[in-house]
């Protein structure tokens, strides 16, 4: 069954579109689930609730707002009726991609709503948070969080995957205690399968 709510990342915030066909209780339920699974990724962003082509009673709108307040530290909740097409992107795969052409050092933090591509390393103590995928043409030794907006489809790919901690969506993984062979690069990709973070060799 198609989800009655969809999320897109726009330039100045996040657009939540409610399916005009869907049953109101299903919308509420889906929204509540999403709020519960979301991290603090939405902190500081505006949340646009797109109610175009839908008709809601004022009480129903109130209920939606009350649920949406559950997102941690969302700046503003705004109703809109624009059918948002331009400037918006899917969170995954074809989303807006941010390129970083240097090594991230301890204490440096990157937080982006789309995908993040890094040409360089992520050193221990550095942190990358992305709404979409994280691709590192180098070594990951710091903390990475892909699919931070709640997307379980996101993945992390690197030439060498030795993160302090790796998070995808709500899942958190730590590497095994024994350190791997330090010298060689071995491209790997981490993703969620059956509710768990899996790491597999990345075949080129």
């Amino acid at each position, binding site marked *: 069954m198609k989800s009655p709510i969809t999320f897109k990342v726009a330039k100045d915030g996040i657009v939540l579109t409610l399916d005009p066909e869907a049953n109101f209780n299903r919308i509420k339920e889906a929204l509540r689930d999403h709020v519960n699974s979301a991290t603090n990724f939405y902190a500081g962003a505006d949340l646009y609730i797109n109610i175009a082509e839908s008709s809601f009673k004022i009480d129903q709108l109130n209920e939606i707002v009350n649920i949406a307040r559950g997102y941690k530290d969302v700046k503003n909740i705004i109703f809109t009726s624009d059918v948002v097409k331009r400037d918006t992107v899917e969170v995954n795969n074809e989303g807006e991609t941010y390129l970083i052409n240097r*090594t*991230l*050092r*301890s*204490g*440096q933090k990157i937080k982006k709503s789309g995908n993040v591509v890094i040409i360089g*390393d992520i*050193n*221990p*103590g550095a942190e990358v948070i992305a709404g979409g995928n994280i691709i590192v043409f180098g070594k990951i*030794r710091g903390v990475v969080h892909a699919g931070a907006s709640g997307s379980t489809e996101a993945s992390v790919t690197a030439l060498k995957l030795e993160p302090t901690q790796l998070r995808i969506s709500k899942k958190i993984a730590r590497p095994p205690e024994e350190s791997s062979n*330090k010298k060689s690069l071995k491209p790997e990709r981490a993703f969620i399968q059956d509710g768990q973070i899996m790491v597999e060799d990345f075949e080129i």
Partner: protein
Amino acid sequence: MAGKSLVITSGKGGVGKTTTVANIGTALAMMDYKVCLIDADIGLRNLDVVMGLENRIVYDIVDVVEENCRLEQALIRDKRHKNLFLLPAAQTRDKTAVQPNQMESLVEDLKKEMDYVVIDSPAGIEQGFKNAIAGADFALIVTTPEVSAVRDADRIIGLLEAEGLRNPEVIINRINTDMVSRGDMMNIEDIIEILAVKLKGIVPEDNIIIVSSNRGEPVVLKENPKAGQAFKNIARRITGEEVNFISLEDNSFFTKLKKIFSFS
């Protein structure tokens, strides 16, 4: 004279910044350069003790900045080398007593008189660190072969780059050859691989450093110790000379060194 200023910094405390400043400064002075050391660790001054000049302090850096005295009055001439000077930190004040722009103009003034101005940075990344790097033309990071020290060095390199001090170089202090060869210590290769900066020098661990710091006699003044030789080599590299890295006795270690040297 238009001298150069360099800051010695580390992030982590206790890795040997002050010892490094005292030794590099003394070594540069022994090579007949005119050198001024600045202790930027206001409130926790140490450099005067390590240099053995504690009992000669009348004015300090805060007096200069607050114009209680002229810069020349605050400079202490070293008891062994007439071309080596120390601008001591204040002990009774804190880091907020000096602002980065004041530091910058102070260092500019000193560079007119000196070949090298060597600034001893406090530990940490707060105001004291910002003051210390404000007037520096380039930076040397001191680290030890410990994960925590290397982590802090990495952070500092990031902060230096953000402040426009590009291409800092690293000094690895207190290498214990026995521990490295047993694999109990991070080796130089690992450290350089993470930090991705140029290696400026390697200083072996040596108990004589503690003795010489307590006596106020930098170890470079002595003929024999390897640590002293290492600091002298760093000083020569600062002046632009190409100096090979010293062999630290055991062979496996030396081959590793050669490897590092070949790619840096």
